[in-house]
């Protein structure tokens, strides 16, 4: 199994190499488009577009995917469900690749939801842990709800644009922004992007998603899936951006997320939680810069995307190695790792320096372009710049926490110092860290082959923005220096800062995760309530609900369509008819009132016989005959069985209130039946079917008794069905009795 898993890393590797071959072409501005009709009638195509943006994402997805696959083989060594894990991982990777290359919004949505589902499966991979299941469900519900909003947005967009192809929407951007749906489209798309990319206030699911195995956190929850929201914002930047709503929302939400995430990261003690909150912060920075309109801001967003994917996946792999080798991820228990794990430490150093943004590391280049981009914007440049400085300073401090405590201080306090991990686990962080340094040394190359083509595919008026190691002494350089010193100060005073952060969180008290918990509890409470009201196990309750629904629904539909109350003429009955009806009523009353089973059975017989008399008096001798026969048999069976049961006293209704409730319900049914019968009698009778039978009974079927002819000739199949019902009832009854005998 492990050999198969290791071989499966060839899949991301070959995709990565394929994407590398595309790089020179996309850098020259080429784009590749394939269209496969899927549901042509609805305009849904499986159309794919590979341009600079897609290729950048594909490189990140397949590159990180390759290292994570190799790493996970050893990380999950001996796990029962290794096969399942790699299946989910690779299917996730393919869906993610589909997401970043789809050109049809509905195809994009399908891939989007697939990534949500695989994220759910991978977070809940350790499905025997309750925490794992809870986190998986939370991630699924939050991102799934965002996905539904996204679908609404896409459908509105499709209606407004008349096409579902993104590449055809881009030329219509101006008219789409005038469209009355624009506000709704923007809100829905942003909701989808913000939930997926863990923006405030939906960020809470991401730290909880750390319940997943560490390779998953490195892959899905730092490098790829959470970037899907960023991808969406970038992809729809030419269609939807430019309005004040777009810019203001993205900058404000992004800035809030960036600062809040970084402050929270400072106070964490679990290595993975630290990384999760800095990921939230990094996603906030990208969102904030995608709010911009000019090339430098967008370059900053895409550069930082690459910077972050490289160093953060390396750091997650490092955290996984530490956990695997020492058995803990708690900061206070870790020390002296640089000596016991030199190779891992090297990777960690490279990644942390990139995260802190030291010169010669790729993170430095990312930071410089960020400040340049922020200052070039016209809308809220100071807010963006200061949020970026603060968030970057905090991340520098976090990088210090990650590096200095566990790696540099003292000898191992933990019992087992932990040996170095095997080669294939170490190679991931080491190579990724090395890439961070390499890219930091040759930023011009990265800029012109990877970042600029990506920005050019969603920003047409591309003025040339170069990524450079040294821009000369200017404001961004000063801000970089400020950031590093701010980071040092924050690191030294981290305990005090953390206390202040905790206090302010308690003071604000608003927490997305608490709202989520309350919603979940609310749903469960509604379920319990409806269970108590409707499903309480009492037959009386069930029956009353059914009858009351019948009365209310039927009564409502009758009353809402009624024109005039039914006309009640005087009955004008002969004395013998009055007598018959009175006997009938008395018998019905006796059944209801009596406490003697025998009397009730006799009264039932009287009711049946009375109805037979009515049949006889109104031209239905066959009915009367059958009714009398059935009634006689019923009375016999009832007598045989019911007289063996206990009497009518004792069991049943106990309270007076329930008696009057039952009576009210029963009377309303009776009143409704009478009203409906009267309404039916006052409407004209259509005798055409009867006339047909009267005409053709003898001529077509040679029978003189029309009722019999209908039953045995015209509707003989119905009669066959009736016979089957009788036979089935007989068999079932026989089986019930027989089984009893067999057991005793």
């Amino acid at each position, binding site marked *: 199994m492990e050999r198969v898993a290791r071989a499966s890393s060839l899949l991301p590797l070959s995709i990565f190499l394929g994407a590398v071959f595309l790089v020179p072409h996309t850098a020259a501005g080429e784009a590749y488009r394939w269209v496969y009709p899927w549901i042509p009638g609805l305009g849904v195509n499986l159309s794919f577009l590979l341009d600079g943006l897609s290729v950048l994402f594909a490189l990140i997805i397949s590159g990180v995917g390759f290292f994570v696959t190799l790493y996970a083989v050893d990380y999950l060594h001996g796990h029962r469900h290794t096969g399942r894990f790699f299946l989910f991982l690779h299917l996730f990777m393919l869906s993610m690749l589909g997401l970043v290359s789809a050109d049809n919004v509905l195809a994009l949505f399908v891939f989007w939801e697939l990534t949500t589902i695989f994220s759910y499966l991978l977070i809940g991979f350790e499905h025997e842990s309750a925490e794992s299941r809870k986190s998986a469900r939370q991630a699924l519900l939050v991102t799934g709800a965002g996905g539904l909003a996204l679908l609404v947005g896409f459908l509105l967009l499709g209606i407004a644009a008349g096409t579902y192809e993104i590449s055809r929407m881009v030329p219509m951007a101006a008219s789409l922004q005038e469209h009355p749906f624009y506000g709704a489209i923007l809100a829905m798309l942003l909701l989808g992007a913000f939930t997926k990319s863990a923006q405030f206030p939906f960020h809470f699911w991401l730290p909880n998603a750390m319940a997943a195995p560490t390779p998953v956190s490195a892959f899905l929850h730092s490098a790829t899936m959470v970037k899907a929201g960023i991808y969406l914002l970038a992809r729809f930047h030419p269609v939807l951006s430019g309005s004040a709503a777009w810019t203001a929302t993205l900058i404000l939400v992004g800035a809030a997320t960036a600062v809040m995430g970084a402050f929270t990261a400072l106070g964490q003690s679990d290595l993975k939680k630290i990384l999760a909150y800095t990921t939230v912060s990094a996603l906030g920075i990208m969102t904030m810069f995608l709010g911009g309109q000019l090339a430098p801001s967008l370059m900053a967003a895409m550069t930082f995307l690459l910077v972050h994917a490289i160093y953060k996946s390396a750091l997650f792999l490092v955290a996984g190695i530490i956990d695997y080798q020492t058995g803990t991820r708690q900061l206070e228990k870790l020390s002296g790792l640089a000596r016991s794990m030199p190779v891992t430490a090297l990777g960690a150093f490279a990644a942390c320096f990139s995260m802190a943004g030291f010169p010669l590391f790729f993170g430095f280049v990312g930071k410089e372009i960020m400040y340049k981009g922020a200052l070039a914007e016209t809308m809220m440049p100071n807010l963006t710049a200061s949020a970026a400085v603060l968030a970057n300073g905090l991340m520098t401090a976090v990088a210090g926490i990650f590096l200095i405590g566990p790696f540099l201080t003292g000898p191992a306090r933990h019992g087992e110092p932990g040996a170095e991990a095997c080669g294939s686990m170490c190679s991931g962080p080491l190579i990724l860290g090395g890439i961070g340094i390499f890219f930091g040394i040759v930023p011009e190359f990265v800029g012109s082959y990877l970042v600029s083509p990506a920005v050019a595919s969603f920003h047409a008026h591309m003025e040339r923005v170069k990524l450079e190691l040294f821009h000369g002494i200017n404001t961004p350089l000063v801000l970089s220096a400020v950031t590093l010193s701010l980071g040092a100060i924050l690191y030294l005073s981290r305990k005090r800062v953390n206390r202040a952060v905790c206090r302010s969180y308690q003071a604000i008290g608003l927490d997305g995760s608490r709202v989520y918990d309350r919603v979940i509890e609310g749903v469960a409470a509604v379920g319990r309530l409806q269970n108590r009201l409707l499903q309480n196990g009492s037959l009386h309750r069930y029956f009353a609900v059914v009858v009351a629904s019948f009365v209310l629904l039927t009564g409502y539909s009758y009353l809402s369509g009624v024109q005039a109350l039914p006309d009640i003429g005087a009955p004008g009955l002969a004395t013998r008819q009055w007598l018959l009806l009175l006997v009938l009523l008395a018998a019905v009353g006796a059944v209801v009132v009596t406490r003697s089973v025998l009397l009730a059975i006799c009264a039932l017989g009287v009711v049946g016989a009375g109805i037979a008399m009515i049949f006889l008096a109104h031209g239905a001798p066959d009915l009367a005959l059958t009714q009398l026969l059935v009634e006689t048999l019923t009375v016999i069976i009832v007598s045989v069985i019911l007289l063996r049961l206990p009497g009518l006293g004792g069991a049943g209704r106990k309270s007076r209130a329930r008696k009057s409730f039952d009576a009210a319900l*029963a009377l309303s049914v009776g009143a409704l039946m009478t009203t409906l019968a009267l309404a039916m009698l006052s409407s004209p009778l259509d005798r055409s079917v009867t006339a047909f039978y009267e005409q053709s009974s003898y001529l077509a079927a040679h029978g003189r008794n029309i009722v019999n002819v209908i039953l045995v000739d015209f509707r003989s199949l119905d009669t066959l069905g009736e016979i089957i019902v009788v036979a089935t009832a007989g068999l079932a009854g026989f089986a019930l009795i027989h089984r009893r005998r067999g057991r005793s």
Partner: protein
Amino acid sequence: METALAFIIGIIAAASIYLMLSGNLIRFIFGLVLATNAVNLLIFVSGRLSRTRPPQIPEGSAVPAGPVANALPQALILTALVIGFALLSFVFILFYRTYQSLGTVDTESMRVAEPREDGPEDGEGPEADREEKARGEEAE
């Protein structure tokens, strides 16, 4: 007669619902018998009762001589009577077996599939409470 029967139908239906709502299985059976009768009568009345001659074709004629009673509802009721009888026989046996297995005819005590969560209710208080609520629902 039709108008009078409309009222009779309502009364029998009310009586049958009242019997079926009682928690006693035997009364439930009585209610079922009455419900069958009420529905048969309703179908019969729907064909109108003004013509009282049976729907038959006399010897030597191809069509009925003069107006006869409506044959269609009669055919329906004939089917309903037989099926109703089959259903009743089965229900009798089922209820008898239920009584043999559970030892009670009180439906509120039949809790094999859905056991009570809050223990047996002895007092009248919660029972009456629930009915207040149910009546509120009905009043809407």
